[in-house]
């Protein structure tokens, strides 16, 4: 099963179960979604529930807010994160705030799907990551799907939740393979220990998690240590409990993220570690993030602008050697 098929299955299942679930976005209906996530659904549920919208993101999210007020469960698709910036007024001023400003009188059961990240040479206006901004908005729950099983379970959770949820997907993961465990329920707000280890905790999410996993054998071999790898899964709320348990065991933390380093999401994790876990740390925290540059088109420059498995291995090994890990 592919990641995009798992997302499709999750939407399909909720639509079958609940007639108030509708999907809206650019090319989500007859076209089947630009990443084929909604493929085949219009044949099953009709154009009334798979709503092709104009290329007008402010309205995609703004209309979804109104649909949710009116009693539907909209699933809005933003074609790519950079386009989603046009919808930030609706996301931040409306979607995130109506419940609080109305003292709980307005409930917004809605999801905005946010495909993002450096894909393949799409250049600066189609390659960015916005979890740092979205996770900083009180009122939003922000999930980040790094694999097939989580994508399937967490998207269903998001659609059936009564809270407004930002569901981040990575554009290079749509064809990632994996299995769904249909028998075991997950808590989408909990982080997941992907690999257990003793000597350092590597925290990541979305596509960088794959790059970390690719780098880990080399790191372990060269340093002679074992790495614990954690997929954050939920970026707001952050599951500090799982991080704390791991950090108490390993005493060292690395955060690997694709967004730009200044103000990037990982700074929150490192700040937490410094404030709350200082006496458990045997080494200064390490943060690997994208460069503070717009994402360039040229492939060599593009890869130079973000962490890669090679760079992750190299930098963690250098950090480990320097700090006696």
């Amino acid at each position, binding site marked *: 099963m592919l990641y995009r098929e798992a997302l499709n299955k999750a939407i399909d299942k909720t639509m079958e179960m609940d007639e108030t679930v509708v999907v809206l976005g650019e090319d989500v209906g007859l076209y089947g979604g630009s990443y084929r996530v909604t493929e085949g659904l219009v044949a099953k549920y009709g154009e009334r529930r798979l709503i092709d919208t104009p290329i007008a993101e402010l*309205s995609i999210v703004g209309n979804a*807010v109104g649909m949710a*007020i009116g009693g539907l469960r909209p699933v809005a698709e933003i074609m790519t994160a950079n386009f989603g910036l046009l919808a930030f007024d609706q996301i931040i001023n409306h979607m995130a705030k109506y419940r609080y400003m109305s003292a709980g009188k307005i409930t917004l059961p809605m999801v905005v799907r946010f495909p993002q990240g450096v894909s393949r040479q799409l250049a600066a206006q189609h390659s960015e990551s916005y979890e740092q901004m979205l996770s900083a908005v009180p009122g939003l729950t922000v999930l980040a799907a790094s694999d097939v099983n989580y994508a399937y379970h967490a998207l269903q959770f998001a659609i059936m939740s009564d809270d407004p949820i930002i569901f981040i997907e990575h554009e290079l993961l749509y064809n990632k393979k994996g299995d769904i465990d249909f028998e075991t329920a997950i808590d989408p707000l909990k982080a997941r220990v992907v690999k257990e280890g003793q000597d350092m905790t590597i925290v990541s999410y979305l596509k960088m998690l794959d790059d970390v996993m690719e780098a880990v054998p080399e790191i372990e071999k060269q340093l002679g240590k074992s790495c614990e790898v954690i997929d954050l899964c939920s970026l707001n709320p952050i599951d500090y409990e799982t991080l704390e348990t791991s950090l108490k065991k390993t005493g060292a933390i690395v955060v690997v993220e694709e967004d730009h380093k200044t103000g990037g999401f990982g700074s929150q994790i490192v700040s937490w570690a410094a404030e709350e876990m200082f006496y458990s740390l045997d080494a200064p925290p390490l943060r690997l993030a994208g460069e503070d540059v717009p994402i360039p088109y040229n492939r060599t420059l593009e890869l130079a602008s973000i962490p890669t498995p090679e760079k992750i291995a190299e930098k963690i090994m250098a950090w480990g050697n320097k700090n006696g890990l």
Partner: protein
Amino acid sequence: MNKLLAEEIYYDMVLGRTFELAAKEHYMGGDIAGFLHLDIGQEGFSVAAMKAFDKGDVFTTYREHVMAIARGMDPKDVMAELFGKAAGISRGRGGSMHLFDPSHFFYGGDAIVGGQIPNAVGCAYARKYQGREDGVMVVFGDGATNGGAFFESINNASTQKLPLLFLCENNGYAIGTKITRVAPFEKQAKKAEPYMITREVDGMDALAVYESVREAQSLIQDGHGPVFLEAMTCRYEGHSVADANTYRSKEEMQICKGKDSIDRMEQLLLSQYGITPDAIKTIQKRAQNCVDEAVAFAASAVEPELAELYEDIFAERKNHAVS
């Protein structure tokens, strides 16, 4: 219009103005803070639109106290909200600009100019989806028609033939800028003409507003798709109480106030509905008592508990304090 309804509309208009004058007084006195956008002058428009669209959902702007009360919210709850008290309709977390009451199908109270329009489009989609016929009304000012949210919304509502009434309150000023300085024409209905049926009404004539909104509602209910109704109004105060209103001449204000909707409604009640001057006085007194009670209620209401800071952020997720 029958006598009972005419009287009711007049009462709510007088109540609205009395409420706004009291709000202004208490803003000056420091009981009310933040931004306070008064509806003085436009009561006929606000009340008649709400009464006419009594069934159906309403989305509106930050200038909404009079509409909220005409819609059925208790003036005490509204005043308490202005005072920031726990008894307020939004428990003191919204303030003047954010009044919400789904039990009266009233969804704010939005303070991003034009921001509520796409929400109303989505709600109209939901109503059509559910087969509910009353439709949705969205109120916005002339200034909002210059924004992208408005243009996206007329396009979407028209394409999808949604039961949505776009009700434009054209008071001629986008905050302090005369609308013709930032738009190519005085009447904004022109922008909607290629998309939908448009109508215009004298917004200072409550009866005419009532009839026009009724007609527009019946059009949207008949599957014609959306309607754009433009009401030409006049606000007597600045954009908010913080605005000294220096950009309008005395002459302009005089002409403006000469069209007063409350005076006109009063004349109509006396001349056509056989209501006596004494009965008018009784209505005015009733409105004053109601506002006095609302102020007393708001003044004596308690402050929100500090723990409320973390309440109602999420429906399901645990609200928590960050250490």
